[in-house]
């Protein structure tokens, strides 16, 4: 009967086409997992150039940040070997490097000039002095503000403002009738979103995640001060629903002219002065604020390319890393799209280049990066490395849950005291489970 034959044929067909997957892998193709940020998407656009130069084909797996993290972490911890290059950050690199999961990048070529990588970046991407990931771009955080609104408010932004000044300026710039919010900050749950911001901010208020015995510190006055200040300022001068705003949400608000100030990653500077921005002509920059305790509230981060140990295509992967994170790539992007669009924050030579120094945000970006010290990030001593995170494997999980409690407090669903109490419990519970206490 024809039905049976159709069924058989269909099955056979589907299995044959499906097994075609086996034939797809030829030696000169590398697979790269990356995040869907603007600079990476731009890099994908130049892949053909790399293939032309080296004969190595590239397959991209581009994922949204959270999905990427869980995807590559699963793969590296189980040694799945799905990727030849992974895009990871300053948090993952030292931990994975210590576990021996990454190929040390200690034999890169002479022309690549490892010494040119900004020391703060190289330090954060190394374990025991060995570099495990090459920074594609690096960032700190700083204040981005609207000069026109600042002027209208009759204020002048110092190069190194305090939090009190920021709060005052935010209140002065807020104009709810015209949908202008004095300040936009991250409040979204997630350790890399609002969690990163509030942790960096807390440093400037003298708070820390752990004391030297790995005891959680959320029951301290400093944390209460941080959250009260943040919530007070945001309730008065922040946008509606700030408890769910992350980097992207704030970027689009700022670009639409709905924020007076925005304190976030330095890489945003090229977006807010770029084509998509309606306020590009009236943006200026300042260092992230402090409270006079000796620490500012800026962080340090790099998106970097690393090679998982065990890949068959280590040599090709290294070739790609040298191409993408080298000076040649920067020059190529500069030639095609202008200096403002090159990946920032990774190389010393970029900031010594007079052409790049002419870019309005170059100096403030470098100053911010240079003022961040992951090894000494808190006012009181702490046992961990990292500014907006603590470089221990448990941190991502703990901080995501803690930031969820904070976000619930921002949204007014619980008090700050309740949120801090829960944060303290969550953190100590997890640290005890991990055997720290």
């Amino acid at each position, binding site marked *: *009967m024809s*039905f*049976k034959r159709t*069924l058989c044929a*269909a*099955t056979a067909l*589907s*299995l044959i*086409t*499906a*097994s*075609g*997957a*086996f034939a*797809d*892998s030829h030696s000169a193709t590398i*697979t790269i*997992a990356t995040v*869907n*940020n*603007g600079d990476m*998407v731009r890099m*994908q*656009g130049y892949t053909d150039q790399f293939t032309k130069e080296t004969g190595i084909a590239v*397959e991209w*797996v*581009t*994922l*949204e*940040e959270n*999905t990427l993290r*869980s*995807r590559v972490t*699963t793969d590296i911890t*189980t*040694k*799945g*070997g*799905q*990727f030849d290059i992974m895009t990871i950050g300053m948090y993952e690199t030292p931990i994975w490097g210590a576990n021996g999961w990454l190929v040390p990048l200690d034999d890169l070529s002479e022309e690549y000039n490892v010494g040119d990588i900004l020391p703060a970046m190289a330090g954060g991407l190394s374990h025991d002095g060995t570099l495990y990931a090459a920074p594609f771009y690096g960032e700190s955080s700083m204040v981005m503000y609207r000069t026109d609104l600042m002027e209208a408010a009759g204020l002048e932004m110092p190069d190194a403002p305090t939090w009190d000044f920021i709060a005052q300026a935010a209140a002065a710039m807020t104009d709810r009738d015209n949908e202008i919010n004095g300040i936009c900050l991250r409040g979204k749950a997630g350790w890399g979103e609002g969690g990163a911001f509030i942790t960096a901010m807390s440093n400037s208020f003298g708070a820390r995640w752990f004391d030297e015995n790995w005891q959680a510190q959320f029951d301290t006055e400093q944390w209460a001060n941080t959250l009260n200040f943040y919530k007070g300022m945001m309730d008065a001068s922040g946008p509606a629903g700030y408890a769910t705003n*992350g*980097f*992207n949400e704030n*970027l*689009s608000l700022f*670009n*639409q002219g709905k924020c007076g100030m925005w304190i976030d990653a330095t890489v*945003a500077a090229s*977006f807010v002065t770029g084509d*998509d921005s309606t306020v590009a002509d009236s943006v200026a920059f300042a260092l992230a604020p402090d409270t006079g305790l000796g620490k500012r509230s800026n962080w340090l981060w790099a998106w970097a390319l690393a090679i998982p140990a065990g890949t068959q295509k280590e040599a090709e992967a290294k070739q790609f890393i040298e191409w993408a994170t080298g000076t040649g790539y920067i020059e190529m992007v500069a030639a095609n799209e202008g200096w403002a669009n090159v990946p920032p924050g990774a190389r010393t030579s970029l900031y010594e280049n007079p052409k790049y120094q002419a870019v309005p945000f170059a100096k403030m970006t470098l100053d911010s990066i240079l003022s961040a010290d992951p090894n000494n990030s808190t006012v009181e001593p702490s046992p961990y490395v990292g500014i907006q995170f603590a470089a221990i494997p448990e941190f991502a999980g703990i901080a995501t849950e803690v930031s969820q409690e904070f976000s619930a407090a921002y949204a007014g669903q619980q008090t700050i005291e309740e949120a801090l109490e829960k944060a303290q419990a969550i953190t100590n519970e997890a640290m005890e489970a991990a055997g720290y206490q």
Partner: protein
Amino acid sequence: MARSVSPRRKLINTTAAWAIGLLIFFPILWTILTSFKTEGQAIASPPIFLGFDWTLENYRTVMERSNYGRFLWNSIIIAGGSTILGLIIAIPAAWSMAFVPSKRTKDVLLWMLSTKMLPAVGVLYPIYLLCIQLGILDNRVALVVILMLINLPIIVWMLYTYFREIPVEILEAARMDGATLKEELLYILTPMAIPGIASTLLLNFILAWNEAFWTLNLTAVNAAPLTAFIASYSSPEGLFFAKLSAASTMAIAPILILGWFSQKQLVRGLTFGAVK
């Protein structure tokens, strides 16, 4: 059902049904419209409904950035393959449950459904490790099998309920005439069950197409379907509503079109034996 009603009543029905139908469909319509806007127009305040400059720019960007054809092909292979494979395994099982029921038939059915209740995240690591051992990560055949297993209980259940509605007398008559088991299955039952099989096929194709956990976590390049495609367009830096809408439209369009063409079949067949 041909019930005669007054034109006034019919008009009221029509108006109400269309209003609700459009309301339910609106999010999809809005996504499709947004996909033809520029990023600026996509977030314009007040929102623009139709009077914008229609552009294909977003689609061009998405096509340039992603190998849409490969994602689409993988989705078709995985959803289609798993559904067909599932039917091949489920038809005999459902047949025997429906026509040779034993005391335990219902228990077996319910047990099958309960295997769907294992939370996927909980077994991600075991399954991932298993796939590494077997060397079947990022492999379409593996995904076909896994999605088949995930949907098999639903397939068996649906077919079972359809088969049960087929009158046993016909089978007995055929047996009297000396039909073998094979003939009975192929020439009598299957044709009668075709509508049921068709709607089972449709429903499971949709379920497999939309499965977003295993298809995302067990693939990289070669086997990545549209669920992975969409993951690269959710919340990137900068304005993204229009590009996201274009990518979303591209991800759901094939299944939406299929669904529309087979709507009658789906409405008729999706009974799960609920109708007597």
